[in-house]
């Protein structure tokens, strides 16, 4: 049986929900960060699925932009995480709820 569009969308929705739930319930910054990446990739999957379904290359192009931005975001985000860890000796987000030291 040919894979249907709805399969991709369902998988994407499941991945996105897992990512969202992870962002909300995880305390560890690294884990939250990975969940955000998961959400981005769930969206990417949707883009690619629609691009193939509509035979339109725009969706595939957009995925490249998302991946570029995600890479930049990962660099900045990891820098911030390292900085926080140096200052607080902790990766728990709730320990960083106060902006000043």
């Amino acid at each position, binding site marked *: 049986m040919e894979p249907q569009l709805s399969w991709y969308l369902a998988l994407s929705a499941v991945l996105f929900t897992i990512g*969202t739930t992870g*962002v*909300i*319930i*995880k*305390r560890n910054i690294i884990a*939250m960060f990975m969940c955000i990446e998961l959400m981005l990739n769930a969206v990417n999957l949707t883009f690619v699925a629609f691009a193939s379904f509509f035979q339109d290359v725009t969706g595939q192009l957009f995925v490249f932009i998302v991946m570029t931005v995600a890479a930049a975001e990962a660099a900045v985000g990891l820098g911030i995480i390292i900085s926080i860890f140096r200052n607080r000796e902790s990766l728990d*987000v*709730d320990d*960083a*709820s*106060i902006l000043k030291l």
Partner: protein
Amino acid sequence: MENNLLSVIIFAPLAGAAINWLVGRRVRNERFIATVACGSVAISTIVAFYLAFNSHGALRTEEPLLDHIWTWLQVGNLRADFGLAMDRLSGTYALFITFVGLLIHIFAVGYMHGEAGFYRFFAYLNLFMFAMLTLVLADNFVLMFVGWEGVGLCSYLLIGYYFDRKEAGDAAKKAFITNRIGDWGFVLGIMLTSFVTGSVSFFAHPAAGEAAQTALSFFRNQPVESFTFGALFAGGATSIAILLFIGAAGKSAQIPLYVWLPDAMAGPTPVSALIHAATMVTAGVYMIVRCSEIFVHAPTAMFIVAIIGAATALFAATIGLAQNDIKKVLAYSTISQLGYMFLACGVGAFVAAIFHVITHAFFKALLFLGSGSVIHGMHHEQDMRRMGGLRKYMPVTFATMVTGWLAISGVPIFAGFFSKDEILWKTWSAAGLGSFSKVLWAIGAVTALLTAIYMTRMMVMTFWGKERFDAHHHKPHESPWVMTIPLIVLAVLSTVGGFIGIPYAFANRDINVIEHTLEPAVARMPDSVNTEHTDEHAEVNEERLLAGVSVVIALLGIGAGWVLFQRRPLLQMPRLLENKYYVDEIYDATLIRPIEVASREGLWKMFDIGVIDGLLHAIGDVVKEAGRLARYLQAGFVRGYAAIILLGALILIGLFAYLGFPLAR
């Protein structure tokens, strides 16, 4: 007739006030300040005399001099200009205001010498002259009201001149607030006039676009209103007249609004002379005479004016009998004399009222300035119980005050005799009052007797008898020439000033200058036969007889005063009189206390704190509580924010899913 010089009369003192306020306060040079102040009033005086007496002068022609400066208000039918008018009445007023004002300015240069607020005093005094002349020369009610309030303001400022003394500040506030009550009546009177007549102007001035029908000429063709109580509330001439009279009673210190004037003596003595004796307090008389056309159509109002005037005259005279402060005696005397003027207005003798205003301005300014000279010489002692025997220390002051004393007591040839006698005669012969005119005359006569007695008491306590002060410690001295010269000039005027109004009955010739001058400017009582120039023998004899009675009364009063007080100057007067019938206390208990209590307990503690503050606090509490709840949204936990974002996103998606996505269609 247009004449632009008129504005110089009012604007010269204004310029003087501005210069003294802006420049005088910096240079602090008494000579400079005095020159500016007296010079500006001198310019007014010269211009006023020129305009009054030149060949087309205001006192020589029937037509008023007009100066339309600018159109001030034009709202619907109501038109009020900044316009001046000098007719025979306002011309007469302007003459004595500027002249007496000039003398008092000169006197004040000596009296206020060395005061720190010298510039301030003269700036206010000049401002007062501006306001007073605006009041008098205004050609409509509204501008007159501006002057009316202006003199009230200057009166307030000058009474409170010694603002570091509490009683001066209190007296200033009392004067201001009491006058507000009167002004309430005046404003309502002006409004009613403009409703009834459609105009607030005194003089028609068609060239400047004013209506030909003025507020005063409107009434000329109206019928005289009925002499009933109901006419007061009918909204016609009687209502207007009584409202205007309320204003006049406030400004001119008549019962029941007279209480501010005695307290106003807390100001410097030249102020008392200028504002509270010679000029401002006679503004009420001026206003009534200016509106005589309205008053003669309102017999009920006239009747009330006469009664209030007579009652005030008698009432104040009895209080004056028992005062120990030299200025308080003169203050009550002023109230009493103002009562005479209102009595004259009330019986329709408008010319006699103005005549008395003029002579009163001379002799009362003289007496006040004389008392100022005494106070100055006694190193600011005002209590007559600590004076006595001053005539050998200050001979010029003594001699001039003697003329003032004789003038106010009504001794023949002195000015007060003619004017007071004129009023008493006009009261006696008033038409339309029946035998009640005799009652009013009797009140006037008793007042004249009391006047002579209390003035004699004042003179005796001050100038005769033993010295009741330590002459070695501080020796009284005669005042410098800047103070004595105005005294001498006023003494001369108090002596000869009455000759402008010698009645026909005395001279057997028609030489009553004041009556001829003012007769065209005032309204005639509609029901009176022309009694002014009657040759009827009996009436002339009656007038002569009454004049004789007046003379006897005056001499009797002086004699009684002399006998009573020459030996015992410290004779205890009745407590009731010394305490002014406890009127201040009664007002305090019946009006001021209740207002105070109602304000404090009701308005402040209940309304302000309860309602207004309560409302504000309630609003504040609601905001605070909402903030306290909303604070949980901003807990500072990242996952919380993420959850809120998710929730928001879900709501939006749900909304779009429910309503459909609008762009897709």
